[in-house]
């Protein structure tokens, strides 16, 4: 394990989110916690489990995939809580993909009922 792989910060703090989806996934967990869907300990456990699973599957886990694990933990936890089903998630994902493809650039992507 060499220094470069540790990805040491050279100076200040940099952006805390690399892409908008990371910030959105982050906020969803906070919102659901505030709503009382899970305790913060439950959340930390789910996240730790997801990180261990990803490491087991070969993720070098350099910190850059952190919010992917965050999102996966969130998806699993809401399903475990019976709030959202896997089918709902899959169907909705496909619906967003169709909507994104059929929307001209520069216009907001809207999901039609």
């Amino acid at each position: 394990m060499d220094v470069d792989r540790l990805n040491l910060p050279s100076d200040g703090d940099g952006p805390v989110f690399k892409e908008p989806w990371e910030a959105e996934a982050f906020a969803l967990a906070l919102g659901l916690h505030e709503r009382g869907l899970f305790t913060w300990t439950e959340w930390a456990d789910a996240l730790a489990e997801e990180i261990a699973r990803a490491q087991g599957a070969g993720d070098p886990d350099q910190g850059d995939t952190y919010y992917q694990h965050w999102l996966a933990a969130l998806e699993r936890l809401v399903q475990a809580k019976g709030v959202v089903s896997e089918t709902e998630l899959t169907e909705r994902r496909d619906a967003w993909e169709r909507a994104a493809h059929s929307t001209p650039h520069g216009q907001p992507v809207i999901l039609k009922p």
Partner: protein
Amino acid sequence: MSHDNDDHGHDHRSSDNHWSELTLRVKALESLLVEKKLVEPAALDAFIDTYETKIGPRNGARVIARAWSDPAYKARLLTDASAAIAEFGYTGRQGEDMVVLENSAKVHNLVVCTLCSCYPWPVLGLPPVWYKAAPYRARAVREPRAVLAEFGVTLGGDVEVRVWDSTAELRYLVLPERPAGSEDLSETELGLLVTRDAMIGTGLALPVASLSKRGCP
């Protein structure tokens, strides 16, 4: 296969937005949760704004500078860190308790979260990438002196290194040693010497000489 055309069989017209898989998954989850009234879009935006722009290591730096300049505050901070930090209005949403670890000439404290990335958000904002990475999480416990050396911190052999593993309920903040020659500095100036890494334990407070290099009037 023909190389005459460059569209690779995929038509990139202007009406084709390509969202990443992760974006699609977040959008799916978010829209379902909003429909089920479990989250509110305005509240989500507020969380993002707060953590992206309003909370950062400067909060923690103010706490440390106060502790350096006010012995009574320092005593409160070391006795009941959550309450002393709340005097600044910095409180956690996750119900975690804060513990402040004081560095000295004999003891250097280093904070890690071995399992995920528990971090004192209210005082430090969100963690840097390396804090979330497996090498730091594993090596900080196994070989803290080697990790510290990579961060540029070399400690004498007589300094004891203590490593603290954060949890969902318990978060740590390191109170670095006050830099030599800082007796005449104001609390605001002292705050400028406190870095994020110094409060995690992967750094030391900056020397007083670094203030003049900032070119402040």
